[in-house]
């Protein structure tokens, strides 16, 4: 087990090295004089030319921009590790700070999409596999097929029309206008940054319902593809497991059907679900960005796209880097979880 974990952990720096190298090589495509501008910290208004010149020189010095490429790469990575991810002029804050400030909102959205998607995938995939070829199976399979083929942004168009424009039930954005002064006011303490949780902790049920209302549509759009994929995997793997001999043995022992499925079949059938869920974060992050932009939801994805559109290279690169780190860590987590759940892996 330990050997497996160590070996798996050793891959991590190699992958992160490739990620940073790719970003750095792409970054070198920016002309040198523009690159200095990218590194420049906040330029105060009304600086004299001499001051600007000194600032540029200091920046070149600090990031080693006149040194060999590998030194530049080293300096860049060192700064990243130290937490200096560049400065975003239009938000007037360091990139990392802006990024981290928006993480809770995105995390909340992702949770509200991922948890129901996962539970529904396990439940419905199980039903479909148990009733193979029957009506429930066909219904689940068709829904999963459509869900996989349905682009989230088109679903968003339809949902906005049906559930907002027509009825006003589920508005876009993160909270209503009336809620914003309360949330940003003195009486409201941000414990976690997750608006729904904070609202409950502050004893503000109205804010809670408001936040929930705003989460429904984007979370639905985000969850659909994930649910569809996981449902298909769940169904296929349960069908696969059901054919194994230990299931026959379990039945022969005289266990009830529920026990056979829950104790023996499901435990093994869940394994592929873990590895599949572990590779979906890149898809999920792309989905988050698209959904946040379409629903005007103030999270990391919208921040990154806004930053990109106002040609802020540090924001764009910072988003790419952060999302790569998230992806790498989640696939590591999935692998470790897999090793915990499946003893066979530990033998390697």
């Amino acid at each position, binding site marked *: 087990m330990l050997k497996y974990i160590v070996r798996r952990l050793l891959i991590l720096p190699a992958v*992160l090295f490739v990620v940073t190298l790719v970003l750095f090589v792409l970054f070198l*495509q920016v002309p040198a004089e*523009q690159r200095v501008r990218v590194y420049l910290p906040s330029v105060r208004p009304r600086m004299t030319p001499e001051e600007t010149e000194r600032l540029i020189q200091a920046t070149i010095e600090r990031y080693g921009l006149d040194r060999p490429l590998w030194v530049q790469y080293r300096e860049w990575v060192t700064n990243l590790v130290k937490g200096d991810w560049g400065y975003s002029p239009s938000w007037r804050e360091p990139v990392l700070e802006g990024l981290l400030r928006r993480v809770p909102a995105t995390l909340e959205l992702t949770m509200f999409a991922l948890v129901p998607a996962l539970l529904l995938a396990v439940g419905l995939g199980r039903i479909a596999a148990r009733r193979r070829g029957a009506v429930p199976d066909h219904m689940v399979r068709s829904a999963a097929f459509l869900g996989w083929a349905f682009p989230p942004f088109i679903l968003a168009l339809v949902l906005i029309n049906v559930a907002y*424009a027509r009825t006003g039930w589920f508005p876009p954005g993160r909270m209503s206008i009336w809620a914003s002064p309360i949330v940003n006011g003195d009486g409201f303490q941000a414990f976690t940054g997750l608006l729904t949780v904070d609202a409950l902790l502050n004893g503000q049920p109205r804010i809670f319902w408001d936040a929930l209302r705003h989460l429904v549509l984007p979370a639905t759009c985000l969850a659909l593809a994930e649910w569809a994929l996981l449902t298909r995997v769940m169904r296929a793997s349960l069908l696969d497991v059901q054919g194994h001999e230990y299931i026959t043995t379990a039945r022969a022992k005289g266990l009830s059907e529920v026990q056979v499925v829950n104790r023996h079949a499901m435990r093994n059938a869940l394994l592929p679900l873990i590895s599949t869920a572990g*590779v979906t974060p890149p898809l999920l*992050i*792309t989905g988050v960005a698209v959904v946040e932009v379409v629903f005007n939801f103030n999270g990391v994805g919208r921040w990154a*796209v806004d930053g990109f559109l106002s040609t802020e290279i540090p924001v764009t690169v910072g988003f790419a880097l952060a999302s790569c780190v998230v*992806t790498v860590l989640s696939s590591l987590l999935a692998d470790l979880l897999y090793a915990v759940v499946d003893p066979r892996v530990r033998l390697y």
Partner: protein
Amino acid sequence: MARLITRRGTTRRLFRPSLVAGVLIILGFLATAIAAPVIAPRQVEETGRVSYRAMRARPQPPSREHPLGMLPGEVDVLQGIVWGSRGVFRVGLAVVAGRVLIGLVVGLVAGYAGTIADAILMRITDGFLAFPMIAAAMVMLALIGFGSDPNAGFLYGYLPTREELIVQVALILFGWMAYARLIRANILVEREKEYVLSARASGIGRGRLLFRHLLPNSTQGLLVMMASDMGAVVVTLLAFVFIGLITFSSDKLMQGDWGHMLVAARDWVVGGQPFTYWYTYLPLSLLVVLFAAGWNLIGDGLRDAMDPRLY
């Protein structure tokens, strides 16, 4: 072809409802794309471009001349859909072909060249796998398209703009990994088989062994992946255009481009009474879903034909 699809070549298995439905859907799109000048002829002005009339800033409801109405700027929706179907095939085929090409090379080398090359190539693959497509596209656009005119390198209808080209390259450059892994896994199985040994014993060169013997036998599942990828690539690209990663241009809109049409329709989704302007986005949206579903049906059908055990 048959060898690529099934090992024992039982063509009967290929006639599965989902596969047939998918092929019919995609053939429909293909016929539309090819017959675009017949289905939706349009006036091309002397300059070779269709003019954009910005005077009519509102969408026009369906009428006799314009069966699906018009987008703002008098852009006929039906014409746009028909001509735009060429664009999605072009993009999909180009990107999938690029991905397959890189995937084949990397998979082949990783699977055959030995453990060190394999380990290095697989870590590189892992690194590229970490990038979400949107991050990759934005980084490429921001860093390589830096300071460039978004429409530079533009040739009427056929060549993509610089921005589109960058996004397509990003889709290729950060999308080949699944193919590489597939080919590598297949090669690892195939190279242990006896025909490889006998081929080697007969004294053929390494290149011949790789390309004449190993590669043709290592394409299991390649078509499945390509088919599902076609739909996914197009949908991803449309999503990127929709959220504004590619600069909107009325030129593109006039030529018929699904992404730009969706952008033009975006502001009319929640306008007036709901569904007042349904024709600006609903027919096209349904077609996008149908296009993606068609490719997925083909992918699923092919997989079922090869491996009827599951799914």
